[in-house]
């Protein structure tokens, strides 16, 4: 009897120890960033010596600030999501509403593989396809923000597909049949009943996809992110991005000033991702499964 008690107590101690260790190590990481970087969080972190208003109105250039990197990330994310949303949602609808058993199984397998794909492999694909096309088709095709955003959209497609599909499949049978019984066509049923009902599910997937695009470094470092470029001027320009900036500064900062900008950038990126994540959680609980399938 006593033996059981000791074993039981050990399980309890072990669990608390593990939980505290996990939480404290992550808090240590965040705390370390904040400790070293909180002083750098000022307007000049973003805009350097330029005036914030002038920079925002694109009248002034920012040289020693994060503004170009932040703007690059925003543009990149917007583009990637813009590519991924229509195709992703349409695919999700197909899987949930149209596909037969066999094609659904096969497609699900394919999307599982895609969602588990290391991002560097997608980056390698994007880069070498670009070089290939540059050589054989047009001189104008070079690594740039367009290429990066397309490659990133491949990476996040499975999120959007999967959340759309599960949201649609989760709709109860009665709801599903009501409009049809009233004479609506299949498409009308999808557009007017099923999609609006699954809006929150789809949105949480989209927000997770945004977070994934914002944090990815491996894809963009191969497909067009550079150390210094200013604001992206066209879809065919190289660009700066926040995560790449952090990676770059971590190994090649040349003075303490630059390093403290790196800490500042890290804090901003963490805040950005946390915010997106909270938003996704707020919209819908139970997204942990989808979050896991992040390569």
């Amino acid at each position, binding site marked *: 009897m006593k033996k059981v008690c000791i074993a039981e107590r050990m399980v309890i101690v072990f669990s608390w120890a593990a939980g505290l260790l996990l939480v404290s190590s992550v808090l240590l990481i965040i705390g370390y960033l904040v400790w070293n970087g909180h002083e750098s969080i000022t307007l000049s972190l973003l805009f350097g010596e330029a005036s914030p208003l002038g920079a925002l109105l694109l009248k002034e*250039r920012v*040289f020693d600030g994060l503004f170009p990197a932040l703007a690059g990330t925003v543009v990149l994310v917007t583009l990637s999501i813009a590519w991924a949303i229509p195709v992703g949602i349409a695919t999700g609808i197909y899987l949930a509403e149209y596909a037969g058993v066999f094609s659904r199984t096969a497609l699900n397998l394919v999307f599982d593989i895609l969602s588990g794909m290391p991002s560097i492999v997608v980056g390698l694909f994007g880069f070498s396809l670009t*070089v290939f096309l*540059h*050589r054989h088709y047009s*001189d104008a095709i*070079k*690594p740039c923000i367009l290429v990066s955003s397309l490659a990133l959209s491949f990476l996040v497609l499975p999120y959007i597909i999967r959340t759309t599909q599960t949201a649609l499949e989760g709709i109860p049978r009665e709801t599903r049949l009501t409009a049809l019984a009233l004479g609506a066509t299949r498409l009308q049923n999808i557009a007017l009943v099923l999609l609006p009902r699954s809006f929150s599910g789809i949105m949480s997937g989209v927000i997770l996809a945004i977070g994934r695009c914002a944090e990815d470094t491996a894809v963009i470092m191969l497909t067009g992110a*550079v*150390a*210094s*470029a*200013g604001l992206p*001027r066209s879809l065919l*320009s*190289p*660009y700066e991005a926040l995560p790449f900036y952090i990676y770059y500064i971590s*190994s*090649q*900062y*040349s003075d303490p000033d630059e390093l403290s900008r790196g800490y500042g950038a890290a804090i901003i990126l963490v805040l950005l991702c946390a915010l997106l994540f909270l938003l996704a959680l707020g919209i819908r609980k139970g997204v942990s499964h989808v979050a896991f399938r992040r390569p």
Partner: protein
Amino acid sequence: MKKTALVRVALSLAALVLSALPVFSGELDSFKNERGELKISGGTAHIPVMKEAAQKIMTVNPEIQISIAGGGSGVGIKQVGEGLVNIGNSGRKPTGDEIARYQLRVYQWAVDGVAPVVNPKNRVTKLTKGQLAEVFSGKIDNWKQLGGTDRRINLYTRDEASGTREVFWEKGLGKGQISSAANVVVSNGAMKSAVAKDPYGIGYVSVGHIDRTVSAVSLDGVTPMIRTVQDGSYGISRGLYSNTRGEPSGITKKFIDYLRTSAGKAIIRKHGFIPVR
């Protein structure tokens, strides 16, 4: 009385402005009516100079966008050859094969050296070339053997695309082996900050990049620095090059020309290199 003083001030101000204008923007005048994009990549020793020149040009003319990426000399030559960038920098002279294959035009704008560096805390600051080669091949693997503390030597080297590596390997190590146990970093900047953080590390970096965070190791009694590179007493020297595919034109040409003006030379000097005459 007051009036004349005012006039005088105004006149001298005007004179000042007039005389100052050509000095401050004269060399940048040629960029005035240009617009478009200039992509630069390659050699990482070049980056500080490229950044400052680009910043000056973009301040004068907001219609010009200059992007700068690293990668190493091999990358610079390859990318400019493929037409992926306008200027490919290299810290070594492109080979005859590379020049012929891509019709490269090669512009040298600075002389630089490559120096072994250690952490400032390290007592070992003098080596012979023989010792250096043995350190990098892994034969000497403890600082104690060189009169330092009893700790293993942590080697740092560059990736295969690096021109700095090639020059150091050829002239510093006599083409000797570099141990495969060495940590690999991706740029001159990364080399400097890696050695600056590791009290038991040794690496090699462009002489222009040496600052207080690392200390240069003197070789056979010669300390690597601008002066010794310039007068030829420090042997591991090299040129810094900017390469274009075919004859450069437009902003590309103007950018390379700018590096050779006195303002360009001032930037080059400021970042620790010796501008070519």
